[in-house]
C-alpha cells in the first residue's frame, strides 16, 4: 500500500464508517484474522468439564480456610535506582507513543500507537501481570511523574511548615468508582467509538487521561489516588493479584497462587468494577454475534429518529448494549448473593457482595484471555514492523519494517483449546476462592458449603456465558 493510499484511506475512514453500518464484524481495523467460533463438540465437552470440575471441587476442597492469610517470603530487594529507571522508561514510552499519534501517519495499522494501546497496553499488560505481578506500577508514567513531583516538593521544602500541600481526605463513598468510569470509558472507545483507531484522537485521550491522573494525585495524594482512582493502574493491579509474585516495599515477595486475591478490600465500587470488566469483554464477544446484529438496526433507527446521524445512532446503540451487558453481569452476581443471604444466620447482602468480589478476578481474566489471546498472538507480531517504522513514514530503524504477521504458528484449533482452557481454569480458580472465603465468614462448615451452591451456580453461569459467546451459536 502506497503512502497516498494510506492517506486516502484515512481520509475516507470516517465517511466509510458511517456507510458500512453495521457490516464491520471485527472489533477494530487492527484485526487481520478473526477467530472461528468454537464448534459444538468442543462446546459440549467444555461444559461437561466445567460441571465435573465443579462437583469434584465441592467434594474435595479443604474444610478450613487456607488462602485468607498467606505468608509472603521476601526474595529480592529492588534498588532505588532501578525504580527511578523504570519510571523514566515508562514516561519516555508514553511521550513517544503520544508523539507518534500526532506526528505519524493516521492509518491505524501503519502507526504504532493503536497497536501499542489496544494490544500491548490493554491486553498485553494483564497477561504479563498475571505471571509477573504488578509490573505496570513500576513503569506507570503518570504515577512516576506524581512521585517525582512529590519528591521534588519535599526536597525543595516547598511544602513549608504550614502544611498547605497536605492532601485532601479521599471520600469513602468514592471508593473504586473512578476506576469503574475509566474502564467503561476505555471499553466504549475500543468497542463503540467510530474513531477508535484514529491515532491523533488516541493521543488526545491519553494526554487527557494523564492530566486527570495528575489532578487526582495532587488532590488526594499520590499513593491514595493510584490505588483508588487510576483506572489502568487499579485494573492491571487486580489481575496482578492472581500472580504468585508480589512487588512491595522495594522488594519482591512470593506467595501461594491465588493468595493475593482475598486481601482485596471491597471498598465502594469494587463489585461494580469487576462487573464492568466482565461485562465489557462479554459485550465485545456479543457485539460480533448474530443476536446483537439483529437487535442493532432497531436500536439504531430508534436513535436516528431522535435526530442522530447514522454514525452517532450506531454509537448510541452500542452504548446501550454495553451498559445492559454490564448490568446483566451485575444481576447474575447479585442473584448469587441473594441466594447466599438465605443461608445460615443471614449475613447482610451488602457484606456478602463485597466479601466475594475478589472471586470474580479469575473469571474476568479468563474472559480477557479467551477473547484477546489471538489478538496478542497475531497482531502482537505487528510490533516488529511498527518498531522499525513507528510513524509509518517509510523508515526502517531496526531493519524489520517489512516483517509480516505469521498467521500459521498457531491454528484455529489451538486457539480454541486456549480459549476453553482459560475459561475452565478461571472457573475453578473462582470457585476455589469463593469456597475459601465462605469458610472464613460462616461459622459452620455446613452453612459455608450450602452457601457455595449459590456461588457454584453463579460461576457456572459466567463460564457458560463465556463459552456461549465464543461458540457458533452466538456468532454465526
Amino acid at each position, binding site marked *: 500500500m502506497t503512502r497516498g*493510499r494510506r492517506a486516502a484511506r484515512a481520509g475516507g475512514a470516517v465517511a*466509510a464508517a458511517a456507510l458500512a453500518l453495521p457490516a464491520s*464484524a471485527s472489533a477494530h*481495523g487492527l*484485526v487481520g484474522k478473526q*477467530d*472461528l467460533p468454537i464448534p459444538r463438540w468442543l462446546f459440549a*465437552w467444555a461444559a461437561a468439564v466445567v460441571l465435573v470440575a465443579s462437583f469434584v471441587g465441592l467434594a474435595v476442597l479443604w474444610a478450613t480456610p487456607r488462602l485468607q492469610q498467606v505468608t509472603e517470603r521476601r526474595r529480592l530487594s529492588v534498588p532505588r535506582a532501578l525504580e527511578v529507571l523504570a519510571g523514566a522508561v515508562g514516561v519516555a514510552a508514553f511521550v513517544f507513543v503520544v508523539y507518534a499519534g500526532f506526528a505519524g501517519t493516521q492509518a491505524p495499522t501503519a502507526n504504532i500507537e493503536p497497536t501499542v494501546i489496544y494490544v500491548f497496553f490493554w491486553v498485553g499488560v494483564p497477561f504479563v501481570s498475571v505471571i509477573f505481578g504488578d509490573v505496570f506500577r513500576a513503569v506507570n508514567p503518570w504515577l512516576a511523574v506524581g512521585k517525582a513531583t512529590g519528591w521534588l516538593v519535599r526536597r525543595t521544602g516547598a511544602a513549608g511548615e504550614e502544611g498547605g500541600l497536605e492532601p485532601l481526605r479521599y471520600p469513602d463513598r468514592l471508593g473504586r468508582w473512578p476506576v469503574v468510569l475509566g474502564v467503561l470509558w476505555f471499553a466504549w472507545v475500543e468497542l463503540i467509538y467510530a474513531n477508535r483507531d484514529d491515532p491523533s484522537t488516541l493521543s488526545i485521550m491519553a494526554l487527557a487521561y494523564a492530566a486527570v491522573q495528575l489532578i487526582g494525585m495532587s488532590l488526594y495524594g499520590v499513593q491514595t489516588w493510584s490505588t483508588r482512582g487510576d483506572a489502568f493502574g487499579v485494573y492491571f493491579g487486580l489481575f496482578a493479584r492472581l500472580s504468585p509474585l508480589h512487588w512491595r516495599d522495594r522488594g519482591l515477595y512470593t506467595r501461594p497462587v491465588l493468595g493475593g486475591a482475598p486481601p482485596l478490600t471491597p471498598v465502594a465500587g469494587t463489585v461494580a468494577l469487576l462487573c464492568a470488566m466482565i461485562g465489557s469483554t462479554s459485550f465485545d464477544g456479543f457485539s460480533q454475534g448474530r443476536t446483537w446484529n439483529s437487535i442493532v438496526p432497531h436500536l439504531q433507527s430508534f436513535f436516528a429518529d431522535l435526530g442522530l446521524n447514522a454514525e452517532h445512532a450506531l454509537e448510541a446503540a452500542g452504548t446501550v448494549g454495553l451498559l445492559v451487558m454490564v448490568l446483566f453481569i451485575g444481576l447474575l452476581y447479585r442473584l448469587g448473593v441473594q441466594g447466599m443471604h438465605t443461608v445460615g444466620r443471614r449475613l447482610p447482602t451488602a457484606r456478602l457482595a463485597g466479601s466475594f468480589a475478589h472471586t470474580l478476578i479469575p473469571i474476568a481474566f479468563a474472559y480477557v484471555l479467551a477473547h484477546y489471546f489471538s489478538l496478542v498472538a497475531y497482531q502482537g507480531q505487528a510490533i516488529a514492523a511498527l518498531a522499525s517504522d513507528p510513524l509509518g513514514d517509510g523508515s526502517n530503524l531496526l531493519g524489520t519494517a517489512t516483517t509480516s504477521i505469521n*498467521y500459521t504458528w498457531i491454528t484455529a484449533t489451538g486457539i480454541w483449546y486456549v480459549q476453553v482452557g482459560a475459561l475452565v481454569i478461571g472457573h475453578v480458580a473462582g470457585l476455589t476462592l469463593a469456597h475459601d472465603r465462605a469458610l472464613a465468614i460462616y461459622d459452620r462448615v455446613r452453612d459455608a458449603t450450602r452457601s457455595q451452591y449459590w456461588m457454584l451456580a453463579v460461576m457456572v453461569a459466567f463460564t457458560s456465558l463465556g463459552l456461549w459467546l465464543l461458540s457458533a451459536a452466538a456468532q454465526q
Partner: protein
Amino acid sequence: MTPRARIALVAGALVALVVAFVVANGSGGDDQDKTATAPVATATGPAASTPAATTPAATTPATPVVEVVDAKPKGGVQNLEFAKGDTVRFTVKSDTADEIHVHGYDFHKEVAAGGQVTFSFPAKIDGRFVVELEDHGTQIAQLEVQP
C-alpha cells in the same frame, strides 16, 4: 476425607477427563476430516443461486461472485466458506473502482469501475478474514476457512 483420598480423587477425575477428552477429540477430528475431503465452497449471496449445472464447467463448483454496487456489497456482507487445504476462489464484480484487500492472506487486487477481478489461492490459514474495499474501508465479504 483424608488428604491422600482427596488427591487420589482429584487425580482420578483428571485422568478420566483427559482420557474422555482425547477419545472425543479423536472422533471429532475424524468428523472434520470427512468434511474436509469434500470441497466446500458455498456463497450465501446471489452467486449461490446461479445455475451452473448445465455449463461445461459443471465438474467444478461455481465460483462465488461478490457484487459491489455503489461501493457496497449487494445483499450485505457475503460469506465465503472454504475448507483448509482447498483453493479459495471468488470473483468481485464492482461498479466502483477500488482495491480489493483480502486481510490475513494479504492479497491486493485493483478493480476498475464496471470491471471484475478473480482471486484464487490455496486456503493455507484457517480463521475468518475480512475482504474489504480498501479505499472505501468497506467490508464486502467474510472469508471463512475451516480447519
